């Protein structure tokens, strides 16, 4: 894991930019990317960097790569009729997307004792405390299974969909999915979700990203950042 931690890899963006443009003019996209990252790195918060070309999602803070997630795929997924659908235009890059509502905000367990009783004195034995009808000390909670497929809403009108597997795109798969969705719509259970930039990754990677996608998390999207 520490290969990524130690990869404090803010590289010479200027050098990269210059080299790409034959030592004369830096690549405007790379300069813009560097400026965006500089803006994010000024703040103490963690930010994500999505590089569709390298198919990686990096967790960074202060320009340092803390961890790297290798992606299995990046797709634009939208709900379309089987025939005659219009695909939305991909969001431009480089750009900074911001999570406005994510699983890190929503998926929370809430504890609330039914009632409170006086605390025992530090040198007092608690054995005389009522046990049957009063609130009992909270046991260590068992670990909860973190979801591995979830959506976060982005400020640019798109969703970010994290999943283990991309939906089947074969003809039969699309047809059966259309029938299932049509049936759900007839029952009044159909959902029209915003188009999603979908990142496919391993189950564990999806789970460890879950808590980072919360309101305000910025995602820098750019190509060929190292």
């Amino acid at each position, binding site marked *: *894991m*520490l290969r990524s*931690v130690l990869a*404090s890899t*803010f590289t010479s963006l*200027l050098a990269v930019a210059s080299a790409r443009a034959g030592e*004369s*003019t830096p690549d*405007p*996209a*790379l*300069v813009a990317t560097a400026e965006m990252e*500089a803006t994010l*790195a*000024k*703040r*103490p918060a*963690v930010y994500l960097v999505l590089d*569709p070309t390298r198919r990686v999602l990096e967790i960074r*803070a*202060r*320009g*340092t790569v803390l*961890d790297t997630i290798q992606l299995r795929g990046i*797709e*634009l*997924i939208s*709900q*379309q009729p089987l025939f005659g659908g219009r695909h939305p*235009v*991909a969001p*431009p*890059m480089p*750009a900074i997307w911001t999570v406005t509502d994510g699983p890190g905000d929503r998926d*929370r367990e809430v*504890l*609330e*004792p039914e009632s*409170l009783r006086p*605390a025992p004195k*530090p040198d007092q034995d608690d054995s005389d405390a009522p046990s049957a009808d009063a*609130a009992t000390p*909270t046991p*260590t*909670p068992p670990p909860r299974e973190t979801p591995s497929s979830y959506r976060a809403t982005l400020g640019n009108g798109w969703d970010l969909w994290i999943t283990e597997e*991309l939906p089947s795109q074969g003809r039969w798969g699309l*047809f059966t999915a*259309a*029938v*299932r*969705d049509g*049936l*759900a*719509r*007839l029952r009044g259970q159909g959902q029209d979700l915003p188009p999603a930039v979908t990142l496919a990754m391993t189950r564990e990677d999806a*789970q*460890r990203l879950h*808590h*980072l996608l919360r309101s305000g998390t910025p995602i820098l*999207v750019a190509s060929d950042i190292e």
Partner: protein
Amino acid sequence: MNAELEPLDVDLGAPRRRRWPVVLGILLAVAALLCCGSAAVLARVGRPYVARPYIATAASDTGDADPDRMVRRAALAEKEIDKVHPKGVYIVVDTYRNRLHLIDKGKEIRTAICSTGTGIVLRDPRNGRRWVFDTPMGERVVERKVQHPVWAKPDWAFIEDGYLPPKDASERFDNQSLGDYALYIGDGYIIHGTLFKSLLGRRVTHGCIRLGDEDLEFVYRHAPIGTRVYLY
């Protein structure tokens, strides 16, 4: 008369038997047509997920006509990032895997199993006040270090166990729970020891980072005040 009574040489059951497969076939065909028709209608109504490769369009406002200005912009951005980039000793905490890494000049000098926040929300039944037991994300700084720390238990520590917070402050002090050392990283969050060693590696804390005794001592000795801590 006898001739009239002779049975006819006609098998009345045969045509009936021959009709059944036809009728069955027709019924099956109708059922299949109905199924296909329904499926076609449903498929027409449905909106399945359709995927396309992500080919981004270039943002329009990234260019600059003046090459020298572009070089200056790039250099400035690089300088700004370099200014905030961690140097020397720093700590990285992975709150999903519950691992703490102590880094010195880009080399990892210690990895420790730790415990981090549960992410659970606790609500006070008296007034609805809530606490979120998250380990904070992002950069923090070791503000102070204490040997033999004493924990002044906050209200949530009582409420979580079903107790009313005591009015007498002296009833809040606990000189065992934090272990031998504490590194304070702001807003009440602490890197400290634990009595519950078997829970190391799990998300069981109220936001603090718990370490085993030896790892805590190592971190305490090697991370001076001002050490930056990166939590994700």
